[in-house]
């Protein structure tokens, strides 16, 4: 065919016949089939909701917001995470903290549908207010709204 260059090693006669190669391939697949029938327990598949993989200790999972000792959010609404976020999934609204004249997030939404779990928000946080250490990875839901986590959800994870 013009314009198309075939790259690769030339096939020998046996290979060109194709039938033997087919037979070889068929043997491979039947080997898997048979061995899997008799050793189902060796299959890597887990029976998911009932069986769960043991997660590595440092598996991150989805975000949470940490609290101060008095239970208020540690977040100071510096927007560093929002700035660092490559997926643009964090949106914050700052408010005045009544006590020490500092800022606090009054709204902190993570749109988990956009999140790419890169962890840059955690890196960016100067006050250790956001962490990805819940280990929660079961994030499905039946509505988009429920997948925009608000500050209360994130604080209580």
């Amino acid at each position: 065919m013009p314009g198309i260059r075939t790259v690769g090693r030339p096939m020998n006669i046996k290979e060109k016949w194709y039938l033997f190669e087919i037979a070889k391939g068929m043997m491979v697949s039947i080997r898997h089939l048979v061995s899997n029938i008799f050793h189902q327990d060796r299959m890597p598949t887990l029976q998911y909701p009932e069986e769960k993989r043991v997660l590595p200790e440092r598996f991150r999972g989805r975000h949470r917001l940490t609290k101060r000792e008095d239970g208020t959010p540690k977040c100071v609404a510096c927007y560093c995470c929002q700035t660092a976020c490559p997926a643009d999934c964090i949106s914050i609204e700052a408010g005045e903290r009544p006590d020490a004249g500092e800022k606090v997030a009054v709204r902190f939404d993570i749109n988990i549908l956009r999140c790419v779990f890169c962890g840059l928000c955690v890196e960016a946080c100067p006050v250790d207010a956001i962490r990805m250490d819940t280990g929660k990875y079961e994030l499905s839901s039946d509505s988009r709204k429920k997948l925009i986590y608000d500050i209360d959800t994130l604080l209580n994870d």
Partner: protein
Amino acid sequence: MAKFTLNGVEREVPDGINLIEAALLSKVRIPHYCYHPGLSPEGNCRMCVVEIEGIPKLQTACTTLVADGMVVETESEKVIQERTEVMEFLLRNHPIDCPICDQAGECGLQKYYMEHGLHDSRVAVEEKILKRKRVDLGPLVVLDSERCILCSRCVRFCDEVAGVRELVLANRGGRSEITTFPGRTLENPYSGNVVDICPVGALTSKDFRFKVRVWFLKTADSICPGCERGCNIYLEQYQNEVQRIRPRANPDVNRWWICDDGRLDYKWINRDRLLRAEGEAGTHPPERADEEAARMLKEASSVLLVASPRSSNENLFALKRFRDAALPRAALVGGSFRKPWEEDRILKRPDRNPNRKGMELLGLSGDLEGALRTGPECVLVVENDLLGDRPELADLLRGKKLIALASNRDATAEAAALRIPVCTYAETEGSWTNFEGRTQAFRPVLKAVGESRPVFRVLEGIARALEASLAWSDFETLRAETFQAAPALGGLARTSGGGAHAL
């Protein structure tokens, strides 16, 4: 002119300026905190030290006037070391609260730490001196004493520019603090400027506090629409809403300042906007609105067009051309009844219309009430809140078909039979001519809100529906035509330059 040597290169600069300004003319930036071109030099921050040949001690550039034959080094090892040391002192008691500080992103300490500091801290956080945080200084300004580096710019601003002694440096040494005199508040009509000139986050604006991080803001050069002074400003937006106004240095007009009224004169841009054309039969898409307006104008036996001293020169000119091309029999008057405010000796001018002079120079003025008394059947009001500014006009307007080209739901727009949304000055290009005859351009910062269009585009649309030929390929064509037709406007003014300091 004085010849001096700056970092080994001979320069010639005007006499009588200090070394910071002299260096800036050669694009050499000398870092500084306490120096501000609009204020008297004080020399207390010690950041602007330079090495001058023949003087053993380092000298502050802000207090040293350039002299013939001076040999100045701004980047010598000694100078750089001294800057680093000064940075260490400045940061010694500075709290580590950049995350909650509104200044973060445009902070002098951050900027110069990155450029001249970068030392490892030798201070434990608990050793820092604690001072008052969140001190309410006045209606517009909040002070965080801990963040203050005591450069005294704000004190000098109040003394020298605003002419009021409202702020003072109290106490001595490490316990020094900016404060108001007992029982006084910072309430002069220019108080917002102290926020701009504060090189750190000590003084923050109550209006802007915590709203947006500054690095999210997009900025455009604009002109304050508040009065006929035409102060140069920066309009700053986030998520297509104007978030704040900052003065833009222009030594010929407003120097470095802007009044508080001008500073807060942006909320109407975000609020109560007319989003779609609305007639008596409901909302219209833009083309339909133009056709509707054309129908009303065509059907009327007599038409009055009302121009506004708040419109840009270009829009005013477009209106004139519209009259000539599409409605040659229509009357065209300009005017506004916006109540004047009190003039002061600093910036504020009594007339609150930014383009009164431009309107007059374009030959648009006249007796609006008289024109209304002649009984036009249809009145087209362009960017002019006649009823809001002067409710008594309601009687004269009664029974007349009113078409309003308005950006907001003001009284006139509400009373109109057809209201077509147009862009504010924050969304379009244009120019205003201030009371001195200086024509200054403003640039858009927002995307057009809703279905609003620039006034001249709406006029084009109506003209098209009236089957009149009126079209400009782009704004620049219109502007060129405007300045050609009205040479009195003098074209766009250039700033005489100088002193446009970032910090």
